[in-house]
């Protein structure tokens, strides 16, 4: 269970350029719940991810995971419990390391790293098995540099790496944002499968309202560092994209193009060229 207790995050505290990223945010997500989070730019979605992952330490309030207070634990010490997939496909993997080295790094997550060999026949077998589930043929490319993979392949690999050690919380920070629509659709399907397989509490940040509505069992709308709407399974099913836009606009945020333009919106000019 993930609990946020009146968490506040302020950048440049008590200076003229002070920015309030999170304002007394409280949130309780039971174990295994899949929560999607939407909001306009600057609503605090990424700050929420950073506070849970440990990349940012809250200015006030507490972060608890499975009843344990994690507020002051740095990100690398939470890594065993919290897995994270970044918005930038290049951020989640090391491009100059091979696929197997990247996966081996993820396999030691949450354990004390020892002087045992990072790669072993047993580990390689597990890697092949997991990669084969993707259906991208990556299981035959273990020694290849990750830098040679496409953005979609890299993001898929990051997702597999996130699920290698069973985390308590999975953080997906706009992880489809940099992918083309076709690839995004495939990685989205993979996301649903991964969350079902791992069964951990999941926070999926997205700017795509369709994705936010299609996946998960709870939807949070954020604005100016707070949760302005909390939709449960039933409300969520009844809601439409227009309802969500209204919720964001109602909270006083401008709704950006990025949210309104849907990924499947046909673009006339490119069609004309084809």
């Amino acid at each position: 269970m993930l609990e946020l207790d009146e968490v506040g995050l302020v950048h440049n505290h008590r200076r003229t350029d002070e920015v309030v990223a999170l304002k007394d945010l409280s949130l309780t997500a039971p174990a295994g719940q899949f929560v999607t989070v939407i909001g306009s730019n600057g609503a605090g979605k990424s700050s929420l991810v950073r506070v849970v992952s440990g990349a940012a330490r809250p200015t006030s309030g507490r972060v608890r995971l499975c009843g344990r207070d994690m507020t002051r634990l740095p990100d690398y010490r939470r890594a065993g419990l919290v897995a994270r997939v970044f918005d930038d496909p290049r951020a989640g993997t090391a491009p100059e390391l091979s696929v197997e080295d990247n996966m081996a790094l993820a396999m030691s997550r949450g354990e004390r790293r020892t002087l045992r060999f990072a790669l072993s026949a047993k580990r390689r077998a597990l890697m092949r098995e997991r990669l084969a589930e993707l259906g991208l043929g990556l299981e035959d490319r273990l020694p290849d540099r990750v830098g040679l993979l496409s953005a979609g392949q890299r993001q898929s690999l990051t997702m597999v790496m996130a699920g290698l050690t069973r985390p308590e919380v999975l953080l997906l920070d706009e992880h489809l944002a940099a992918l083309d629509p076709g690839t995004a659709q495939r990685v989205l399907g993979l996301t649903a499968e991964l969350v079902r397989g791992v069964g951990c509490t999941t926070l999926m940040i997205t700017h795509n309202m369709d994705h936010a509505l299609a996946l998960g069992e709870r939807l949070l709308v954020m604005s100016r560092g707070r949760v302005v709407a909390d939709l449960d399974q039933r409300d969520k099913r009844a809601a439409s994209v227009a309802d969500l836009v209204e919720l964001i606009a109602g909270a006083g945020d401008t709704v950006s193009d990025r949210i309104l333009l849907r990924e499947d919106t046909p673009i006339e000019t490119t069609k004309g060229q084809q």
Partner: protein
Amino acid sequence: MDRILLDALVTGLPMIPVFLGIYTVFRLREDFDLTVEGSFAAGGAVTTVTLIAGLHPALALVAGALAGGVCGVLTAGLHLWLRIPVLLAGLVMSIGLFSVTLHILGTPTRSLLAVPTVFTWFPATPGAGADLRMSIILAVFVTALVTAYAWFLRTEVGLALRATGVNALMARSQGVNDRAITVLSLFLANAMAGFGGGLIVQTQGYADVNMGIGTFVAGIGALLLGELLVRPGRSTVLRIVVCVAAGTLAYRLILVVALRAGLPAGDLRGVTALTLVVAVAAQRHLRDAVGALRARMTPDPKLEGSTR
């Protein structure tokens, strides 16, 4: 010809650990650590005084390596606690270590001629046989150290070290404490520099307070040469080791040939600088040429990434 090769081996082999340490920071961590100039001399000095004090020659090497490692930890401390870039912290350390080394030695140079070293274990034969014997003993020590290091790079901790240099954010999100890895990498790099310093003083039979000056640039030149010969990647540990060894020996070979050709010793620094320039130029232009040639022979778009 034999003499040239043997000279290159005797002077080059002790530098392989030093340059492997420089590679660790320069390529795996993508940083510049000038501490090696100081830790190399400090390691040599500590080996010298412990040998004179009667310590076993192999243990004296360990003492020199530890002294070098401590220098690296101090640099890491300056970097992490005072938030100085590694480049600047290393520069400060290399300057300060000159005085420390002078204090350790007591005099600017100290002879080891009357003291047993690693080379006195085996009976000496005059002439070229002495150099051959020396290079075999050096090769045994260097191979042992380099093998241990390659083994380390392939462990879970070694993999974490290789990962933090490319993508620290990713490494942290996978549970790697990148601050601890910074300390570890600077410790290892400078411990190897200290070990190399200890080997050099035993090879040449004296320690000199100035022996570290120019080590860093020489190392970079040797590594660039090595990368021309072997193309190492972060996941190909064996290639990394081969690249450093080949580069070091090739670099020493160039210097020995220059000396044998009658160049005065004072010109060696110039040759070092020239080697570096040529290696950089070759990396820039030869690589493109080789890449273009490969692309022409195999018209496969996938290859574009590998030739960069």
